[in-house]
């Protein structure tokens, strides 16, 4: 593995039962970069994140994070590796019985022996970074979707992780929150000197902050490059995906019988 890459994946195969999800995937994520993995719904993006985090084991192929093969780690090794990762879930996944402050303090209290005054200062610093220091005492139920996502982001970076993974961070946000979250992804990555993987299908917002992009379809990488290269790509699926074309490599109509025949306009056998 090249020491410049924090995550390296080669010939990765994975399936649920007989249903193959990933079919020989190859990609790498260089240190310090914000890399996005894009693709339509159900193409295996979230599954890929779970494989990187060690929540799933590949059928074959290799997932290396920080030089370690994730599938070969035992439970302790996996937990040690996860301590170097942070993850933002699609809808935040905040602990609903804890306040905003306690949510951000959770990883510190569970995984470190820091004294409470230090935890307090660190939590306030993290919340200040996402602009929600004033909301420390609120409960998750009192937050808007965008605020909840920012609190979850503060929790994900609570212990200054080396790798931050984002699972659909832009879903269901208003334009202001969208801009705030995408800006935070970039600034936090640069401020922490971390590496970020953003799983998304939001082309417009993510293209502003990315260094590199992978486009997935049917369990494989079908296109890759910088945002400018991707937008200029002439590959049929990439062009359709990045420009939001209705018909193309992915047909508008779900496969079915002939339209005329089905309406009885064309006689069978003629």
């Amino acid at each position, binding site marked *: 593995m090249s020491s410049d890459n924090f995550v390296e994946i080669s010939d990765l195969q994975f399936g649920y039962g007989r249903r193959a999800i990933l079919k020989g995937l190859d990609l790498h994520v260089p240190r310090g970069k914000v890399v996005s993995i894009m693709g339509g719904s159900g193409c295996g993006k979230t599954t890929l994140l779970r494989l990187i985090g060690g929540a799933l084991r590949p059928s074959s192929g290799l997932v290396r994070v920080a030089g370690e093969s994730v599938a070969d780690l035992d439970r302790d090794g996996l937990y040690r590796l996860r301590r170097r990762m942070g*993850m933002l879930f699609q809808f935040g996944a905040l602990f609903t019985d804890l306040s905003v402050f306690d949510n951000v303090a959770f990883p510190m209290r569970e995984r470190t022996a820091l004294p409470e005054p230090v935890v307090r200062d660190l939590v306030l610093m993290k919340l200040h970074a996402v602009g929600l220091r004033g909301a420390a005492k609120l409960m998750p139920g009192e937050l808007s979707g965008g605020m909840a996502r920012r609190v979850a982001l503060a929790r994900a970076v609570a212990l200054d992780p080396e790798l931050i993974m984002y699972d659909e961070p832009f879903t269901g946000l208003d334009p202001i929150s969208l801009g705030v979250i995408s800006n935070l992804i970039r600034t936090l990555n640069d401020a922490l000197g971390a590496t970020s993987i953003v799983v998304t299908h939001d082309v417009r917002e993510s293209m502003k902050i990315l260094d590199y992009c992978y486009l997935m379809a049917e369990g494989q990488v079908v296109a890759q490059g910088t945002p400018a290269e991707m937008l200029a790509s002439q590959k049929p699926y990439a062009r359709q995906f990045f420009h939001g074309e209705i018909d193309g490599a992915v047909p508008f109509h779900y496969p079915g019988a002939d339209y005329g025949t089905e309406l009885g306009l064309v006689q069978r056998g003629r």
Partner: protein
Amino acid sequence: MVDKGWLTVSGIGRRSIESLLRLGFAARFLGLTLVQSLTCLRRPRLVVREVYFSGVLSLVIILVSGLFVGMVLGLQGYQTLRTYGSESALGVLVALSLLRELGPVITALLFASRAGSAVTAEIGLMKATEQLRAMEMMAVDPIARVVAPRFWAGVISTPLLTAMFTAMGIYGGYLVGVVLLGVDEGSFWSQMQNSVDFREDVVNGLIKSLVFGVAISWIAVFEGYDAPPTAEGVSGATTRTVVTSALTILFLDYILTSLMFRGL
């Protein structure tokens, strides 16, 4: 016709195999919960917090139910005993009924409906909203942090609530029997004191409630953790907790009673 019969037989077989697999999974889950219970010893505050939510918040329903069950026992017992001129044995009847059977069983049924269902729904919703997965990604084991404290809180709360239910029930029996119907107070208490054996009645009743507590807590945490992460999945798991707990309590009660009191 043969095909239909065959389908029925294969359906029963499939369901039986699925049930056995699930039981095996639940047993492994219980083993894992016990192994991960060290966290509860290191951080007892986690258990105390859950004892508050499961036990303390169930107090009202337990105390009120205990009072009324005791009052009904007093009323029914008085009517029956008066026929034989033995009203003075009312205290014994009320105390033994509550200590041996009604206390442990009704408390367990109420606890399963009030707290067991809440634990299942809470863990199921935590799973559906990815909170458990988030915890795992923070290198925190959800079985140690979420499941084990709730399991032990249920095990601790059930015998304590049973004791309070029984005490309240005896007081209810006293209110109706002595205060309302005029049974002699001295014979009510003294006959109770003479006839109730601490080892046979009180301890056996508490052992029953402890076993029920383990069963309810195990069912509640397992159903929550195993619930499909959807609205229907969580609601189905909550219902299963109440139904399975009720049937398990009644079945275990028969087994335990036959073991404890067969010589009497």
